[in-house]
């Protein structure tokens, strides 16, 4: 009964989305205020019904209703309740429903938090988002109905959730990632609405900017969680594989980063308008492409749930409509919104332009590497795979090019600046950075030129930022008052840039200094990694809620002092019989110690053991959290709230409509 209710609610939501896509758009065209005013209500109605539908599916999972096909193939009565809940999106159908739910959340958020927005713009924006919802809800209903029943032969128990997905990180990773992915639909909808209205101005950028920043922040957190999960759950200590599915989430992030920066120029200076619109379309198209890559099963990956050509075809057609349609609209309308403001070459505008070019090129190179195997395969020229060496070779130099220029950004001025001023501002930070680069890597035993370079770049960033903060609050004289004068969006920028600096150091230090021993060990044996003595004590049998495990116990000492007790496991899940490695990690600010088990070797109780020493691996995740917090902070800025409290929206709206 409950699954049928969910199915029915999903159909109602689809009808509402269809209405939302058509009625307010028609109203905006005919200037019909009543039709336009329907938009927020339809948006909320759509959210309510998708939420009901999602709840029904969650209930089916929690109640072990194995007559529902999705539940039967992705859950099990032994599964802990929290994983039964997260299993809702641990499969193709459910994750698509989550996609739709989050899209409806964003749509309603725009409807609720935009009283300052002219009704005409609001109705166009919501209409565009409604159209996207139509696409996804019909995809759900037509090709991947989550409520399909297995009648009359109901299985006695379910197949179990893939053990890899039975993990706390996986409870929040997909929702966060989707919040980011789908959040770019808001920026996209604002861009399309602006193209439809033919008015791209600073106020458009101001409306769209907070949404874009929030979406970007969620995407950052989502990607970071995915990387962290891969590190401790996949059992081989890697944190980024340039796997096509990772790239699928990384490409919208790169394009989104460009978008966040070019929106700043558009808001502050009214420049780069057409470019910003194009980036908004590009970022959302890449989100859709990511969904296509992940969900169509064209890729070999943990994320590829099912292979069904019909599904792949549907998303491909949808993608073609969205990208093709918006590019045609862009071609027709963009020339009308070009700008006439100029800027000097030595200015913040050109620095941000540089940022945009770097991120765009980075996006395109990743896109090329990701799609190349698919194209070649489609042409029947063989099955290639493009590995991490390619991506590292193109991506790392690009980022190394970006960082030196990045420090100039905060200290630079809009419109016209002078290189003398830059020199005066950044001479001291530059010297400090060089000193750091020479001394800091000495802390580690062997001096590594790449780490020195990374320290140079990030110290340059950090010192430049420190200099700028100091300058802006008026030196030591204005200490408490000056600090308060700085806006949240400024602090957000500082935080995000500091996060980037932390990422650089973390990534390079881990890549250069990591020590990995894969070896055969018997209980009682010892191995030394980077001065840490790993003693293999014993192997014990352990029982979990839905698995049996061999647990290896390790004692880690350094210079005779106990550092940590580590107990990695090799689990056999009862329902599916699948085997899973559970690594044990001793985390630290400056180093992680990582132990994972392979398979038993020979008769003597020996095991294949993986011992890792990973310096500063956490810095990139902490850096990513900083970036996300920075992006969230910008939304607190007064200038976005001020517009909210001002403006009697309808009067303003009708004026805008003329």
């Amino acid at each position, binding site marked *: 009964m409950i699954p049928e209710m969910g199915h029915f609610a999903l159909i109602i939501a689809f009808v509402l989305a269809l209405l939302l896509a058509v009625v307010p758009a028609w109203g905006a065209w005919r200037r019909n205020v009543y039709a336009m005013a329907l938009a927020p209500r339809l948006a909320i109605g759509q959210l309510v019904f998708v939420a009901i539908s999602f709840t029904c599916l969650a209930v089916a999972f929690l109640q072990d209703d194995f007559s529902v096909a999705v539940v039967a193939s992705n859950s099990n009565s032994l599964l802990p309740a929290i994983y039964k809940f997260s299993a809702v999106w641990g499969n193709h159908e459910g994750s698509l429903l989550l996609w739709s739910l989050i899209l409806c959340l964003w749509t309603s958020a725009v409807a609720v938090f935009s009283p300052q927005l002219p009704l005409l713009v609001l109705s166009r924006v919501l209409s565009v988002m409604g159209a996207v919802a139509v696409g996804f809800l019909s995809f759900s209903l037509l090709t991947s109905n989550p409520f399909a029943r297995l009648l009359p032969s109901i299985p006695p128990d379910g197949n179990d959730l893939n053990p890899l997905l039975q993990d706390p990180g996986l409870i929040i990773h997909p929702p966060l990632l989707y919040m980011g992915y789908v959040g770019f639909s808001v920026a996209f909808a604002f861009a399309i609405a602006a193209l439809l209205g033919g008015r791209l101005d600073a106020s458009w950028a101001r409306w769209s900017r907070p949404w874009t920043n929030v979406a970007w922040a969620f995407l950052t957190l989502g990607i970071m969680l995915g990387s962290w999960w891969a590190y401790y759950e996949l059992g081989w200590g890697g944190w980024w594989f340039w796997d096509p599915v990772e790239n699928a989430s990384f490409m919208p992030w790169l394009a989104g980063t460009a978008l966040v920066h070019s929106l700043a120029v558009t808001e502050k200076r009214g420049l780069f308008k057409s470019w910003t619109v194009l980036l908004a379309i590009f970022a959302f198209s890449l989100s859709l492409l990511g969904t296509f890559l992940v969900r169509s099963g064209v890729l070999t990956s943990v994320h590829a749930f099912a292979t069904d050509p019909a599904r792949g075809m549907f998303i491909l057609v949808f993608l073609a409509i969205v990208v093709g349609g918006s590019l045609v609209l862009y071609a027709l309308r963009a020339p009308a919104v070009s700008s006439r403001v100029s800027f000097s070459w030595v200015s913040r505008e050109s620095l941000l332009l540089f940022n945009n070019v770097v991120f765009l090129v980075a996006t395109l190179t990743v896109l090329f590497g990701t799609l190349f195997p698919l194209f070649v395969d489609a042409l029947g020229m063989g099955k290639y795979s493009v590995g991490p060496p390619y991506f590292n070779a193109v991506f790392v130099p690009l980022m190394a090019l970006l960082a030196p220029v990045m420090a100039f950004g905060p200290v630079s001025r809009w419109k016209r600046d002078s290189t003398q001023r830059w020199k005066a501002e950044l001479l001291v930070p530059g010297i400090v950075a060089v000193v750091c680069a020479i001394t800091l890597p000495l802390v580690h035993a062997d001096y590594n030129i790449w780490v020195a370079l990374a320290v140079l770049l990030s110290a340059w960033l950090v010192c430049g930022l420190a200099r700028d903060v100091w300058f802006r609050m008026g030196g030591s004289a204005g200490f408490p008052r000056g600090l308060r004068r700085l806006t949240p969006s400024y602090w957000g920028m500082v935080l995000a840039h500091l996060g980037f600096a932390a990422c650089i150091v973390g990534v390079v230090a881990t890549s250069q200094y990591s020590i990995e021993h894969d070896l055969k060990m018997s209980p009682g044996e010892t191995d030394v990694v980077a001065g840490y003595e790993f003693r293999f004590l014993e192997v014990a049998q352990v029982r979990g809620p839905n698995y049996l495990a061999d647990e290896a116990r390790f004692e880690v000492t350094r210079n005779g002092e106990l550092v940590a007790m580590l107990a990695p496991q090799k689990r056999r899940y009862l329902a599916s019989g699948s085997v899973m*490695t559970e690594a044990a990690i001793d985390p630290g600010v400056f180093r992680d110690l990582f132990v994972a088990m392979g398979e038993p070797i020979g008769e003597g109780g020996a095991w294949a053991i993986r011992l890792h020493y990973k310096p500063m691996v956490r810095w990139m995740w902490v850096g990513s959290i900083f970036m996300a917090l920075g992006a969230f902070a910008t939304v607190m800025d007064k200038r976005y709230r001020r517009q909210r409290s001002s403006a009697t929206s309808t009067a303003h709206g009708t004026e805008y409509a003329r």
Partner: protein
Amino acid sequence: MHPVRKQRLYLVLFIVIFSSAAIGLIAYAMRGNINLFYPPTDVAQGKAPVGQPIRVGGMVVEGSVQRADDSLETRFEVTDFEASVPVVYVGILPDLFDEGQGAVASGKLDENGVLQASEVLAKHDENYMPPEVMDALEQSGFDHKGVKQ
């Protein structure tokens, strides 16, 4: 020249130079960093290059997995049921690697026709099969249990 035009010219020049640098970088990175998949039949017929990075995949032959007693070396064979290719891998195998299951190994062929693998990928869950393996089997005309279709 008009300053706006001059600015535009510089912009175009900058983009051209930057993107050609990027394309050069890509071309450089693509050399030797991509590898092609070969079904075991092709390897057996000598169609696969020796000493270059390639991938070979198929079903792991039942009873072919031999683990060394004193190291992490593992030997096994992958097959598409027409021909099979011996693989040597030193390291820890993925959890879902097993006899009678699909696997893809990447590495280099040595002169004896043995694939010296640097990485072995297995399927990710019970119902999933690497697409390359599926295709290789389709070409040889067998299903994953070795029954002729």
